[in-house]
């Protein structure tokens, strides 16, 4: 079961054709054929804004987009988000692994980059560290329009070019996402209390 965890325009027909079983939409979407989660992007200039935005939201998946190092540190230490879309470096990426926060690699960053070679180099660095410290990696299309959506095999190839093995690239499209989906299921049933605590 493959997931695309960052979509802004939802098109059920194309997504099914591209081989996805579930998506996380940063907007409104409903589907009978696909599993749909609601995500929210968080942009923050200072730590207080970040804390307020994270507490107020009721989204299933929280993604911190393009934060500076200070924001990355606050979000990771306080475990405020589920994923970070940035080029995270050494001490923080290790802490991300401990707190189970995913490193989100967006294909759209590469697709619409002015310097794709530089972007790939930075992504490769982050992935190398993430592999070393066993931080969860999530590869997403990051599509803002339906024409920016990409298929599962293209995203797997993207992962492989970035330095992942084939099974690791496949896992980047499903493992962490399935955990989030299960958490969402538990939340709906009222069994989820907080990370590590659930009703039995």
């Amino acid at each position, binding site marked *: 079961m493959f997931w695309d965890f960052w979509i802004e325009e939802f098109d059920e027909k194309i997504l099914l054709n591209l081989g996805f079983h579930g998506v996380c939409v940063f907007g409104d979407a409903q589907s009978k054929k696909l599993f749909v989660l609601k995500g929210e992007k968080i942009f923050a200039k200072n730590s207080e804004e970040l804390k307020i935005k994270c507490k107020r939201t009721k989204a299933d998946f929280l993604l911190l987009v393009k934060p500076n190092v200070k924001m990355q540190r606050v979000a990771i230490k306080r475990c405020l988000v589920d994923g970070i879309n940035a080029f995270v470096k050494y001490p923080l990426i290790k802490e991300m692994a401990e707190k189970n926060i995913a490193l989100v690699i967006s294909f759209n960053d590469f*697709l619409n980059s002015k310097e794709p070679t530089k972007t790939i180099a930075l992504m490769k660095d982050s992935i190398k560290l993430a592999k070393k410290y066993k931080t969860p990696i999530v590869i997403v299309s990051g599509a803002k329009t339906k024409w920016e959506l990409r298929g599962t095999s293209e995203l797997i190839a993207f992962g492989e070019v970035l330095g992942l093995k084939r099974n690791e690239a496949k896992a980047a499209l499903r493992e962490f996402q399935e955990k989030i989906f299960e958490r969402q299921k538990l939340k709906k049933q009222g069994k989820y209390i907080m990370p590590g605590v659930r009703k039995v």
Partner: protein
Amino acid sequence: MKKPYRKRYILFEIISDSKIKEELIEIAIKKAIKELFGEFGLSEANPKLLKEFSKGKKHVLCVDHRYVQKTKLAMAYVKEINKKKLIIKTIKVYGTLKKIKGVIK
């Protein structure tokens, strides 16, 4: 003994609102490979669109076996052709033309 250069055939589909000519698709893919992996990469990948296997929106691209993943990435890097937006979706990679004939017909 294994040959050093083995061919792979990528069966792909174009998702777009309008029809796009095969020649333009081949040019766009070659341009993307050149942009990402350079002239040397393009000469090693040696991509060729097999026009006799094109059917509707499905096409076949022949590449070197070492460049399958990189070619897939380059294909995903194609955003538009002649200002027409499109998505290139890889269906499957085949090792022989015999198998691909069975799938397309």
